[in-house]
């Protein structure tokens, strides 16, 4: 089948509005009678709330209300952030919202928020992850959770959760989850290896650093329906979370996902319960826009993690066993953690003869853990890929050849117990092996080095639906409820265009809300193009059936003998006998028309994931005297299935690599020993700004996903996974010093060079 339009680089469909400022984001919409909320955050990491004094704030002009948890019409008693948007009796991290000031203006609310006095009785803060899991450790939360949290874990990755086995280990009550996976005798396999390497690797809390802070607006329609206009990754999950929080039926809630100003995993029903709770309590429209400082303190960054890892290999490079013990900091998140995902991904895209891997989800008094682009994957890859480099060195093997020897292919068993589907691990490793930068590593000046690393993301699945509709002007509208977080709209356009037979210029995407749209899950887990894109393809094909049926009548030619090319339906082999899609649409969408509207509904329910692998090369120069690492060049090769729009794919690859550079060299949320945030602004929290990012080469590798639209798969998360270990391996190549903690700040590199 011919596939026009696919694989052609074209501008993002959302770009003109975004660059001209025409896009209306969640904070921009005008709402009559709008009130503004300002949060009062806990100043302590762990305390009991004795009292919230609000009289002074209420006396301020322009202040409508000061709300605490008891004022919100909550229908549930859980302790997750949906069920407890404002702390009830115990605060469990510094920055947790305790009260909300509602003012006629933002300024009035902000002025009054300073006058709310929260009286706290201090409790022991739990901030050390390893200490927290020891038997007898102080508990990070004293009030028992009455019921389970929501179902946010399943959004992110299609990995199994291992088994909660019965083997006993003495652990404190802070350990909320223990995931253990074994196969064979890993210890024996490692001990019998020709070479064994091990290490402990530490990674910090990392902030998603989206441009648009979290924002949500809520109001009640006269009918009583709660409407929430918000910056979110998923409208339906937000609706179900709000229904749970406030005991409302789904038909009483309408969630409108506005154009997203960045999220990267961080925008899942965190602020909506606050805005909605205030609107329900006051029966007036309320908007909450977090300041950057609040966004740093009160949201849900990526977990800190400690990984103890040991791996072995035979002389010829064949991997033997892998043992991992992975401590994941959940902060206050009792609902889920990445211990399941990270302890699956720590094996990498490689074959192992035996494994013994355990992940712990541990509560502390730091933040509330949340997802961040490939949650749990960069931390796992940093540990594994650093050790594989040491293994190659110990065995005297080329690091890429070592990885190639063990790279999984379709059918190889993963450590989760499922065979890998189609996967391009070998192909991407071959790409970086053949890149000129890899060949250049033997001729570098002093203090320069080139490192390699690979990592993958399993890709998620979730049933989805979409609608395609052709109008009387011959253009097509794709209706979706999927949030465009990464450029998926532009992918939908070419999918619909190719599946129907219409120029992409004539296809647009509109976003429906939970009351009007076909179902689509949250944008996360690298699954939107793969699953919703498949539904769009189905919808366009269904619409094509309608246009062929109409054309068949008009042209008196059987549908099977017709084709749709660039908006014209014509006889196969006799293109002169034709009618345009526009003409046909005009004949259908009118009083007395004879044909069914040219519309299609499509759905998808893939059961096999589409993992994406990315391999990186990084070229660095290290200043031995100051410890500064300068990136000179970076290469990323990724298996993307099929590049629907190569320009967008390359943008995702570069963006992922840049966020990986952030993990490697810059980003860390740091607390003092009492759990107070030390890095709560961009003056303290470093991100990889443009001047610190080198040229990034992108190598697109296409190993088609059997069940993806035109072979495409989700590609957003894979490119972040192994960027940091590639840089760490480059630093080691340049200096001989191996860093076991991210980010590799100048001070840490300097220290490593002296030890």
């Amino acid at each position, binding site marked *: 089948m011919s596939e026009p339009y696919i694989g052609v680089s074209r501008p993002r469909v959302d770009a003109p509005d975004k660059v001209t400022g025409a896009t209306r984001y969640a904070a921009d919409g005008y709402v009559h009678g709008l009130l503004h909320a300002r949060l009062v955050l806990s100043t302590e990491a762990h305390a009991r709330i004795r009292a919230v004094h609000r009289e002074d704030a209420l006396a301020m002009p322009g202040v409508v209300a000061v709300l605490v948890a008891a004022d919100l019409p909550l229908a549930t008693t859980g302790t997750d952030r949906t069920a407890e948007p404002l702390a009830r009796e115990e605060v469990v991290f510094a920055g947790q919202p305790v009260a909300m000031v509602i003012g006629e203006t*933002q*300024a009035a609310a*902000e*002025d009054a928020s*300073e006058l709310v006095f929260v009286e706290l009785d201090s409790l022991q803060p739990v901030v050390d992850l390893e200490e927290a899991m020891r038997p007898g450790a102080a508990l990070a939360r004293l009030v028992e959770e009455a019921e389970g949290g929501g179902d946010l874990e399943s959004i992110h990755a299609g990995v199994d959760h291992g088994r909660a086995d019965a083997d006993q280990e003495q652990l404190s009550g802070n350990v909320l989850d223990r995931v253990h996976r074994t196969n064979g005798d890993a210890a024996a396999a490692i001990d019998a290896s020709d070479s064994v390497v091990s290490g402990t690797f530490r990674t910090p809390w990392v902030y998603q650093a989206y441009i648009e802070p979290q924002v949500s607006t809520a109001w009640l329609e006269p009918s009583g329906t709660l409407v929430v206009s918000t910056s979110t990754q998923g409208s339906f999950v937000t609706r179900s979370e709000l229904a749970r929080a406030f005991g409302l039926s789904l038909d009483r809630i309408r969630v409108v996902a506005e154009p997203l100003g960045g999220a990267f995993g961080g925008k899942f029903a965190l602020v909506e319960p606050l805005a909605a709770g205030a609107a329900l309590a006051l029966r007036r429209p309320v908007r909450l826009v977090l*300041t*950057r*400082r609040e966004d740093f303190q009160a949201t849900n960054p990526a977990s800190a993690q400690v990984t103890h890892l040991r791996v072995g290999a035979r002389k010829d490079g064949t991997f033997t066993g892998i043992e991992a013990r992975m401590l994941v900091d959940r902060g206050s998140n009792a609902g889920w953690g990445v211990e399941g995902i990270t302890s699956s991904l720590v094996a990498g895209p490689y074959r192992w003869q035996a494994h013994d891997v355990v992940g712990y989800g541990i509560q502390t008094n730091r933040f509330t853990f949340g997802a961040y682009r490939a949650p749990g994957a960069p931390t796992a890859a940093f540990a594994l890929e650093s050790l594989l480099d040491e293994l190659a060195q110990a065995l005297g093997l080329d690091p890429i050849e070592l990885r190639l020897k063990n790279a999984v292919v379709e059918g190889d068993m993963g450590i989760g117990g499922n065979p890998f589907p189609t996967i391009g691990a070998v192909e991407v490793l071959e790409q970086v092996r053949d890149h000129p930068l890899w060949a250049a590593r033997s001729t570098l000046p002093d203090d320069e080095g080139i490192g390699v690393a690979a990592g993958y993301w399993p890709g998620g699945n979730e049933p989805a639906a979409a609608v395609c509709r052709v109008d009387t002007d011959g253009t097509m509208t794709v209706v979706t409820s999927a949030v465009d977080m990464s450029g998926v709209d532009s992918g939908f356009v070419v999918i619909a265009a190719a599946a129907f037979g219409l120029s992409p210029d004539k296809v647009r995407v509109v976003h429906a809300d939970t009351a009007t749209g076909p179902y689509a899950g949250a944008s996360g887990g690298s699954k939107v193009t793969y699953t919703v894109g498949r539904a769009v393809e189905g919808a366009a094909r269904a619409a094509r059936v309608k246009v062929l049926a109409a054309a068949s009548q008009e042209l008196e030619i059987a549908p099977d003998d017709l084709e749709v090319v660039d908006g014209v339906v014509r006889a196969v082999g006799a293109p002169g006998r034709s009618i345009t899609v526009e003409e046909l649409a005009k004949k259908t969408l009118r009083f007395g028309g004879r044909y069914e509207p040219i519309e299609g509904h499509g759905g998808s329910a893939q059961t096999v994931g589409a993992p994406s692998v990315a391999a990186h090369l990084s070229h660095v120069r290290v200043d031995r*005297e*100051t*410890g*500064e690492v300068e990136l000179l060049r970076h290469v990323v090769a990724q298996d993307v299935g099929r590049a629907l729009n190569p320009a967008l794919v390359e943008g995702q690859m570069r963006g992922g690599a840049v966020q990986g550079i952030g993990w490697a*060299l*810059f980003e860390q949320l*740091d607390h*003092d020993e009492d759990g107070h945030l*030390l*890095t709560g602004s*961009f*003056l*303290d*929290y*470093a*991100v990889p700004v443009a001047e*610190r990012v080198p040229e990034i080469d992108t190598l697109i590798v296409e190993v088609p996903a059997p069940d993806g639209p035109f072979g495409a798969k989700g590609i957003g998360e894979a490119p972040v996974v192994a960027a940091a270990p590639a840089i760490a391996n480059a630093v080691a190549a340049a200096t001989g010093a191996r860093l076991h903690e991210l980010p590799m*700040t*100048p*001070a840490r590199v*300097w*220290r490593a060079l002296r030890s």
Partner: protein
Amino acid sequence: MIPAATRYERASDLDHALELLAEPDAKAIAGGQSLIPVMKLRIARPSVVVDISRLEFRGVDVRGDELHIGPLTTWDELLDVPEFGRPALAAIPECARGIGDLQLRNMGTIGGGLAHADPASDMPAVLLTLGAALELRSPDGERTVPVADFILGPFTSTLADRELITDIAVPTPLPGSGSAYVSVEHPASGFALAGAAALVGPDGGARVAVTGIAGRPFLLAGDDHRTALETADVFGDRFASAEYRRELASVVVRRAVERASQRAKEDS
């Protein structure tokens, strides 16, 4: 991130500015690159901000054996001053180029940066090595204070409430001098973890100042810079320990002296 309510007044001349600054908790504002952020954080809550950006103290000129830099000169304007083309004064544009980003350099002023007295700010180190002095004016009159005596500690200077910097006087270095500024920046703030400015004279002697490692930028005493740094009271935090900052300082001092010495050979 909304500042507390404040009033705004624009000063038409120096006397007007000093009159407006008579109000308790008044604050002068020029480029606003230091004041506005701390107002947004509500660390500063001025009763009135007195806009002095239209006053005449802007630009660079030569009078006798001194260069005079108007305190309202922006960082960006310091980049292409013909007089700073001399290797002896190269540290000034070299330092200015590394301050903040383009937007900040377009708005931020050298006088504002000095008055803010951030212990890690870059330019005071350069002015210290060049032996600059500040002219300050208040309703009580005028006084001249060497930069070395102006900054007292973190965010603290000798500037009085109703006093403004009206001139920065830099002695013209001897022919055959060279200057340089070298720093290692905090990757988020861009402020110096350690910065060093050096002025090397025709006799090869070096005057060196460091910033970012202590409560204020300071001149290193004597010729043995390493020993001077070893005895300095160096600040440390979780990002960069005192030990590391002290080591960084010795590295940037050496590099600044080397670069300034090179430049001295090209100066005439």
